[in-house]
């Protein structure tokens, strides 16, 4: 029964979403508060129905209801409960339900917390959200019904792909979707602003927390996915320039640009139309990412089942959503107020440059990702674009951006002077120069690029730390005053320092991996010994073992001399019910590098091919991403206090501790 309830709930959610958009647009154009109130209630109702549908699907997985086709295809009686529940979004159909659920959550949150927005504006935002919801609910119901029944009911299901049975991958899709869908709010805000023809600082103050939340979730989601690929795919790569990875990177790059330009709009009232354009494009890239994963336009390791009907629907949706938003932009944006002016050297100019580079970089990734399609269109031939292209174009452009990142937060608004800027940043600049020279001396001229990468990392970390040091005035005042300054450091400074330092940490990790990774391949049997990366390892045992739903060849290594944990276990697993093979690499993690071992197939003589890698500083790649996300979270904690106070008059209440207007909801 639960599947039918879920299916019906999904249909009702679609109807409610349509009502929501009609009622809100109509109500907003007539300034009818009763109609607009109905629209806000509809957003809540939509959430209830979608949550019910999601719950029904999860229930099907929990109770192993194999009469539901989706459950039968992605779960198995031997599969642990946590992975059965995670399988709810492990398939294409289920992941769409999760997508709609998150969208409905955003809509409901807007409806509940939107009191301080102008009523007509909130209505139009909810109207756009309703349309987006209806489009995705329609997609789910028309092309990928998650509740289809299977007859006759099989006694046993097919397992969820074992590669996906992993704690990292349980939270990867929800985080990515929080990011993708979160940008829909920025999109809805931009469209509503274009319809109304006005954008002001309050608009930016309102949109920034949503963009921040989405950006933070997306940052974590991408890092998680990359980390998963690192430990699960068995050869220690962390980024492959795979189309699906690029699909998540593009909204991230655009979202980063949006985050910065929205700040300029909020603080200085500049970059108005540009920010609107970024808001539209960021969400469009999220949609294109969805299109990419589901259409089969490009071949990818993580692609869902190829189905042109689904691709056609998502593409049509992309074209209608983005096309109409951009048309609206072309029509309305020129008539909008132009922003405040600023000098060529100023924080505004810095953010503009940051935005331009991020836009170009996004374009580069876009072209690289879709080039096979364009190439075939022009020449009829097939081609693949691999890492060489991205390394050649993306890396230099991004390095340029990283050079500029350190300057940004220390530039003054409106206008600044070159000499003063350089003087302010003398310490980070000096440290980076020392790192470059020391690195070149240590690694030789052949590795000057690696030295440059490390210098960039040092520059970013030092420039991030400088923000705090300047604020605290370290060494210039009595300890007590410094301590007070530390405690009262504005959240915004913490956030920028964390995020930019995180970028530096990631840069160090990426550089070390690119320049100093080493590996060794050999055939080993029990008792064999190997010297690698300053360690001596012994293969203690190599034997088959049996897990809950798999059989495995397990290799146990001991580090007899050198750094690392005492034992390392690497497995090669075989999942009989889905006939899949996975490699569980043995990883000896540490702050300055990982030892990574994967075991090959056992041969007749009981030996196996063993591959060892040394991954210097690899953990820094994700550690930096976590710092960036932390910066986003910290910034959000600040935003929440000010969220409900867009009217300047209310902000004069001299009590910054009380989140007054928000408590009124």
């Amino acid at each position, binding site marked *: 029964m639960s599947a039918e309830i879920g299916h019906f709930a999904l249909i009702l959610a679609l109807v409610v979403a349509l009502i929501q958009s009609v009622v809100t647009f109509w109500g907003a154009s007539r300034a009818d508060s009763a109609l607009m109130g109905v629209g806000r209630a509809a957003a809540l109702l939509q959430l209830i129905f979608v949550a019910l549908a999601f719950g029904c699907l999860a229930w099907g997985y929990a109770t192993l209801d194999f009469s539901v086709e989706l459950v039968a295809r992605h779960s198995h009686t031997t599969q642990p409960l946590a992975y059965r529940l995670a399988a709810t979004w492990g398939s294409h159909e289920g992941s769409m339900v999760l997508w709609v659920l998150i969208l409905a959550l955003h809509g409901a949150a807007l409806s509940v917390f939107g009191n301080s927005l102008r009523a007509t504006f909130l209505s139009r935002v909810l109207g756009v959200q309703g349309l987006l919801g209806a489009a995705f609910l329609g997609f789910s119901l028309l092309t990928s019904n998650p509740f289809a029944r299977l007859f006759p009911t099989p006694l046993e299901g097919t397992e969820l792909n074992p590669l996906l049975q992993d704690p990292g991958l349980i939270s990867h899709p929800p985080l990515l979707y929080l990011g993708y869908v979160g940008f829909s709010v920025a999109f809805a805000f931009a469209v509503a602003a274009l319809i109304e023809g006005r954008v002001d600082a309050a608009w930016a103050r309102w949109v920034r927390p949503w963009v921040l939340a989405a950006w933070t979730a997306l940052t974590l989601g991408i890092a998680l996915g990359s980390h998963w690929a690192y430990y699960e795919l068995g050869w220690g790569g962390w980024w492959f320039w795979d189309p699906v990875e690029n699909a998540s990177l593009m909204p991230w790059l655009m979202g980063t640009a949006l985050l910065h330009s929205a700040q300029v709009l909020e603080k200085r009232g500049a970059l108005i139309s540009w920010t609107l354009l970024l808001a539209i494009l960021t969400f469009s890239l999220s949609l294109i990412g969805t299109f990419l994963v589901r259409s089969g336009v490009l071949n990818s390791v993580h692609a869902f089942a190829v189905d042109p009907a689904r691709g056609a629907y998502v593409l049509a949706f992309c074209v209608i959503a983005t*096309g109409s938003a951009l048309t609206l932009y072309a029509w309305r944006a020129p008539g909008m107020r132009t922003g405040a002016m600023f000098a060529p050297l100023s924080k505004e100019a810095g953010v503009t440059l940051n935005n331009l580079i991020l836009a170009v970089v996004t374009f580069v990734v876009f072209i690289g990702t879709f080039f096979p399609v364009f190439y075939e*269109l022009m020449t009829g031939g097939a081609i693949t674009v691999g890492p060489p292209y991205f390394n050649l174009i993306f890396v230099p452009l991004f390095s340029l951006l990283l050079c500029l990142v350190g300057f940004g937060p220390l530039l003054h608004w409106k206008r600044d002077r070159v000499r003063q800027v350089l003087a302010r940043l003398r310490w980070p600049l000096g440290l980076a120069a020392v790192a470059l020279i020391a690195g070149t001396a240590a690694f030789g001229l052949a590795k000057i690029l690696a030295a440059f990468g490390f210098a960039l990392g040092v520059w970013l970390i030092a420039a991030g730390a400088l923000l705090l040091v300047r604020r605290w005035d370290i060494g210039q005042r009595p300890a007590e005053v410094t301590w007070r300054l530390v405690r009262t450091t504005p959240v915004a400074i913490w956030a920028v320092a964390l995020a930019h330092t995180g970028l530096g940490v990631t840069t160090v990790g990426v550089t070390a991996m690119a320049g100093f990774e080493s590996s060794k391949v050999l055939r080993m049997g029990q008792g064999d010994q190997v010297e690698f990366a300053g360690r001596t390892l012994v293969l203690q045992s190599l034997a088959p073992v049996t897990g809950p739903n798999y059989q495995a060849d397990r290799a146990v290594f001991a580090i007899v001399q050198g750094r690392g944990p005492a034992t390392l276990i690497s497995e090669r697993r075989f999942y009989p019910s889905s006939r899949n093979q996975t490699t569980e690499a043995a990883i000896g993690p540490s702050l300055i590098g990982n030892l990574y071992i994967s075991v090959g197939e056992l041969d007749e003589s009981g030996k196996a091919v063993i591959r060892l890698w040394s991954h210097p500083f690899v953990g820094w790649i994700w550690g930096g991403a976590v710092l960036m996300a932390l910066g986003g979270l910290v910034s959000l904690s600040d935003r929440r206090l000010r969220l409900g106070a867009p009217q300047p008059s209310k902000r004069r209440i001299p009590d910054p501790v009380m989140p007054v207007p928000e408590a009124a909801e």
Partner: protein
Amino acid sequence: MRRIAFIAPVLIFLIIAGALAFGLGRDPKILPSMLIGKPLPAFNLPDVRTGTGGKGLASSNFTGEPALLNVFASWCASCRIEHPFLMRLSREGVPIHGLNWRDKGDAGARWLDRFGDPYDRVGYDPTGRTGIDLGVTGAPETFVIDRHGTVRYRHVGPIDAQVWTETLAPLMQQLRAEP
């Protein structure tokens, strides 16, 4: 002039969307083979049922009439899905030869004994050497060979009713009509 800057995004977007719409009709799994229009690379493989004195499979067996060369393995899940359809084709009299690719010991032979043998001849290629010569990227994969032993088509992935009726059957008919 300023207006154009605002209209440009939507125009660029529409061009890109057009290209993507074109891409929709394209299947990324169609891999052109270097071998198309060329004779099969020479090979002479023992029979999959080693030691039974079976017929084995050689490139010279592909003359006289058009035939399919199907690459399979016992460890390949999609081959298991494809298998019943091959049995149907075999009953309908379509000549199919098998290449048991990268299977260990008698795993391939046991697989055929258990599920049925749709092949006229089955070559045994445990090292995957012949697979490399053919440019096989994975199993299952199927080549269409004409009566002169020339490779005419390559299909990656399982053959199902749709692939057969829309692509392979018309091609086989055409090849049978060729001199």
